[in-house]
């Protein structure tokens, strides 16, 4: 039992090395596994499927590199769904990070280049760029979007019918079918100031850690769907592509390594406790 107790005081760098090796395994052995589609992912998928023509979806892409591991996949799969069904959507980023819209551009550029070359900026999607003001900005967007945005992220005026035909039929909250906010921790103000006031459906794409406090909104119908961490993107990808081989969103690429990551932590906790109780019994 002595060596078990000695396991306690391993140098921190050995633990780091173990994590690098354990997490690199799934990348070496490139396997794809079926995923269990959870109810909150399915509800968002079905809600977007039922989008009536003429309605627009507002994507609050307010994430940056700090949470790209989870949020990149969450916007990627929804953009693919919207581009596939030609549902027009508007991208913005309210309050949290000015880098959000540029990350959304990156995701769309790859999708359009690889899968939907005929989709056009200004017709299928518009990027309005960053704005500030939190709940005050949300109230402005709901009443009249031109109060909050004068130009889009490329400098075109919103009333430029030739470059932004899509924006000519977006005036206020009436024209928006769903608001999909994607970031580490989406602002609950969307629920209070938009859904609470106008009844507009809201969906979140959030980091796993924050989802714990958002499940209660799914129960009360204040959220129509939610993508939780890497698995949310992987499950949505599974709904988009029934055939396992066609799935290549970041969510699908990371879900198996994510599984290894969880196992690493579980093993670490169990080993740590075995070592601790062994040491205590020896001292005890």
């Amino acid at each position, binding site marked *: 039992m002595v060596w078990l107790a000695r396991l306690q005081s391993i140098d921190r*760098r050995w633990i*780091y090395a173990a*994590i*690098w090796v354990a*997490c*690199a395994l799934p*990348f*070496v*052995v*490139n396997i794809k596994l079926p995923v269990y589609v959870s109810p909150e992912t399915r509800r968002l998928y079905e809600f977007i499927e039922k989008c009536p023509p003429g309605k627009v979806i507002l994507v609050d892409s307010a994430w940056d590199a*700090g*949470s*790209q*591991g*989870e949020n*990149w996949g969450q916007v990627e799969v929804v953009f693919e769904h919207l581009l596939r069904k030609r549902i027009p959507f508007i991208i913005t980023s309210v309050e949290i990070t*000015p*880098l959000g819209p540029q990350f959304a551009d990156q995701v769309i550029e*790859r999708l359009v*280049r690889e899968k939907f070359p005929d989709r056009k900026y200004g017709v299928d999607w518009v990027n309005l*760029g*960053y*704005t*500030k003001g939190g*709940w*005050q900005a949300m109230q402005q967007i709901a009443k009249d979007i031109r109060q*909050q*945005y*004068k*130009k889009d*992220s490329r400098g075109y005026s919103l009333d430029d019918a030739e470059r932004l035909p899509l924006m000519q039929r977006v005036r206020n909250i009436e024209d928006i079918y769903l608001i999909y906010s994607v970031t580490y921790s989406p602002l*609950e*103000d969307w*629920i*209070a*100031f938009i859904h*609470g*006031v106008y009844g507009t459906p809201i969906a979140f794409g959030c*980091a*796993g*850690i*924050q*989802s*714990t406090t958002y499940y209660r909104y799914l*129960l*009360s*119908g*204040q959220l129509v769907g939610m993508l*939780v*961490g*890497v*698995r949310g993107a992987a499950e949505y990808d599974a709904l988009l592509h029934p055939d396992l081989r066609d799935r290549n969103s*970041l969510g699908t*690429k*990371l879900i198996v*390594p*994510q599984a290894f*990551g*969880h196992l690493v*932590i579980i093993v670490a906790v169990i080993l740590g406790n075995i070592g601790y109780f062994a040491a205590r019994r020896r001292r005890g």
Partner: protein
Amino acid sequence: MEGATTWQIWLAAIVTLGIYSYLISDNKLYRLLLNVMIGLGVGYNFIIMWKQVLQPLWWEPMTRGFAAVFNGFAPGSAQALWVLVGLLGTLWYFQFSRKYLWLSRIVIGMTLGAGAGVVFKQQLLMNMPQIADSFRPLIARADGTPLVGGSAAPVSLWMSLNNIIFVGTIVCVMVYFFFSFEHKWAPVRHTARLGRWLLMVSFGAFFGNTVMTRMAVFLERLQFLLRDWLRFG
């Protein structure tokens, strides 16, 4: 990382490994890269904030207003008043002075005061649907009709059990956080004790989901290093 030429991928990889050198030991390269990162981020955000928020919402309306004022108070010269908001905005920066610190507290007070004024609307609109959704039948018929005078549908054991656990957990957790009376009375003490145990199940979910997020960040970096950089697997 598609469409990236190799030197760009190498730059990103070097920078990534440079920061990971912190894991070996806290070193100079890591601290330098940290300074570069913070500098780039602050500089980048500064320009984006100006181009996408302050210029369209403040600078342009104000200059249009002054243009209207200069050609004989044409319509729209009221926009020139934005200059007053600009002056008020400079009060933020008295935060750095000891003598005039109180000036910055005016603007802080206004901004946070607005937030405090709207706290009722914010909190109640967020939580009233939650309270309404917590009205769950403890003995639930399968088709949801009421116990007394409802349809003859059988009572669904699974739904009833879930609802009892659901409402019970809310009650126990809230009793745990009551402080204005002594937990002498046995039922209250046991309810609070059970509340703390039920909180542990919820904190288990917090722990598990925190692991999910922390792993995802590192695995994305690993995916970049192994797939995009080393072309592995």
